[in-house]
């Protein structure tokens, strides 16, 4: 009886491995944390008939491992594969030095076409269940459900909200058969899987920015022959062109309430920040300086704007208080600091910082202006913070190929998402999904 269950679990694992789809982006963890919590994520038992398309436990295990804060046990080192409490021998998991054990079952639901997924997290030392839930979904939703489980487990173990159910948007470039550069705006899960192209053009695309509801992207496309700002719904594909002014139309970012877009226009002869009210399309100029003003970013409370300005010579980061109208220079270290993003709690900023010819991603605490360099590769740009504030995704280069790197805000954890086929750039991490 027991053996039968084990066999089922093993068979389930094998089926899932053979069915795994080829992903465009694959994760390579390059630096982890020595004090990561050991957690055994046991393959979930499948109690149905035909094989499932996704290996839920493997997705959870990969998610948790990518966080760097959790060290999942390799399946090949497990002594047994329990899927219910009565099959757990806590002593065995203690011998394997595991602090926690995640087990689960997937079975056909009573409502047709639906699956029931049950998962339980056990504290191995105390031999108690600390988390457990029964959720349901369609077979096609297993990946989303797995990320949901990762979010729950991660939050329980670290106290940090999980951001595994979020998305990435980025731009890929590759030469087509005729040697032309083909640009694509793509959206994927936070782990790089389920990649979808939402725009394909032979002219540059840049600066994608998520709306706060994570349903729209604003971006710059040159498809009309000139740069223009577009807004596109990532689900329906429906889009509108927002600006087509003479000169620059760039760097769109959304206000936290989603009602305004800050953009850069040079229609009056010089790059300045503008805000466009998306409810009535009223436009207001925000900066007025003969230098370059670009790359706006709204503070989490919407009361301030960060931007890059060359008003002191080279590019430096400034903060404009939208209430008082006062502008304050924030960066003083080095001669190139640009394209800043706020941490979700507003306590620090992340930006591109040049030191000795190397373009790093750097962080600066706003309370004491202390700067720390987070990345060491030479041409890093476009930092974007995960909505839980723990990781940054950024664009970097290796040889002539651009790829995406991720680093924790404390610099301790790193991984990369290289694309097998294309140059990847301009990553941006979505907010938490609202539904």
């Amino acid at each position, binding site marked *: 009886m*027991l053996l039968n269950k084990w066999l089922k679990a093993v068979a389930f694992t094998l089926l899932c491995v053979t069915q795994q789809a080829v992903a465009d982006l694959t994760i390579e963890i390059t630096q982890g944390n020595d004090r990561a919590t*050991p957690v055994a994520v046991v393959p979930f038992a499948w109690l149905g008939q035909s094989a499932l398309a996704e290996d839920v436990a493997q997705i959870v295990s990969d998610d948790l491992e990518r966080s760097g804060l959790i060290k999942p*046990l390799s399946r*090949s*080192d*497990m*002594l*047994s594969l329990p899927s219910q409490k009565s099959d757990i*021998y806590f*002593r*065995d998991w*203690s*011998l*394997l*030095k*595991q602090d926690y054990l995640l087990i689960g079952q997937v079975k056909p639901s009573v409502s047709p076409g639906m699956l029931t997924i049950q998962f339980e997290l056990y504290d191995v*030392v105390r031999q108690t269940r600390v988390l457990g839930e029964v959720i349901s979904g369609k077979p096609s939703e297993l990946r989303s459900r797995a990320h949901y489980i990762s979010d729950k487990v991660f939050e329980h173990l670290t106290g940090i909200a999980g951001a595994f159910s979020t998305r990435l948007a980025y731009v890929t470039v590759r030469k087509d058969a005729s040697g032309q550069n083909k640009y694509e705006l793509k959206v994927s899960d936070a782990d790089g899987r389920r990649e979808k192209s939402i725009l394909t053009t032979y002219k540059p695309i840049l600066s994608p920015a998520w709306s706060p509801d994570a349903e729209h992207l604003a971006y710059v496309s040159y498809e009309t022959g000139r740069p223009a700002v577009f807004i596109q719904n990532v689900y329906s594909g429906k889009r509108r062109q927002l600006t087509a002014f003479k000169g620059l139309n760039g760097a769109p970012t959304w206000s936290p309430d989603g009602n305004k877009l800050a953009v850069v226009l040079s229609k009056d002869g010089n790059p300045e920040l503008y805000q466009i009210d998306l409810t009535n399309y009223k436009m207001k100029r925000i900066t007025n300086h003969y230098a370059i003003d670009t790359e706006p970013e709204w503070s989490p409370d919407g009361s301030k704007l960060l931007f890059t300005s060359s008003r002191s010579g080279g590019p430096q980061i400034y903060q404009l208080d939208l209430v008082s109208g006062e502008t304050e220079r924030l960066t003083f270290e080095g001669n190139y600091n640009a394209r800043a993003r706020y941490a979700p709690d507003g306590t620090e900023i992340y930006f591109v910082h040049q030191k000795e010819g190397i373009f790093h991603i750097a962080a600066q605490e706003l309370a004491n202006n202390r700067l720390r360099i987070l990345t060491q590769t030479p041409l890093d740009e476009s930092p974007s913070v995960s909505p839980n504030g723990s990781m940054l995704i950024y664009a970097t280069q290796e040889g002539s190929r651009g790829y995406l790197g991720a680093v924790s805000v404390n610099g301790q954890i790193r991984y990369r998402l290289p694309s097998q086929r294309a140059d990847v750039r301009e990553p941006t991490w979505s907010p938490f999904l609202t539904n």
Partner: protein
Amino acid sequence: MSGYRYRKPKKLVAEINVVPYIDVMLVLLVIFMVTAPVLTQGVKVELPEAVSAPLDVSEDDLPLIVAVKKSGEYVLELGPDKEQAIKPADLSLKVGKITRQNPGVQVLVRGDKNVEYGAVVQLMSVLQQAGARNIGLLSQPPEK
């Protein structure tokens, strides 16, 4: 003063450097007396009687127990398998999984007093190759 400084003579180290010995023996062997009840569960084995150090079992560092039955068969006391004999190859595989995660794990051999010497030696060799570095033999306190 031209850079000369009085240098204290180095203290002589009186301890034996243990590491090379372990290297030579590969396995540190200690004989323990069974005191904790956890060690007396499982397959019935008549332990040899000997006076030796009592063994403390802490919750954080549970030992892995391998019993050797009178027949010379091995029993790895894991999960539900408290009676089932295990082949040396499977034993090696399972112990290897544990030592990879828990390199300092104490492996205790609970051998029947009537077991052939060869069976115990073979077991020690298997355990050692599976990465066990800390192996102990269990005995029973002599009856008073």
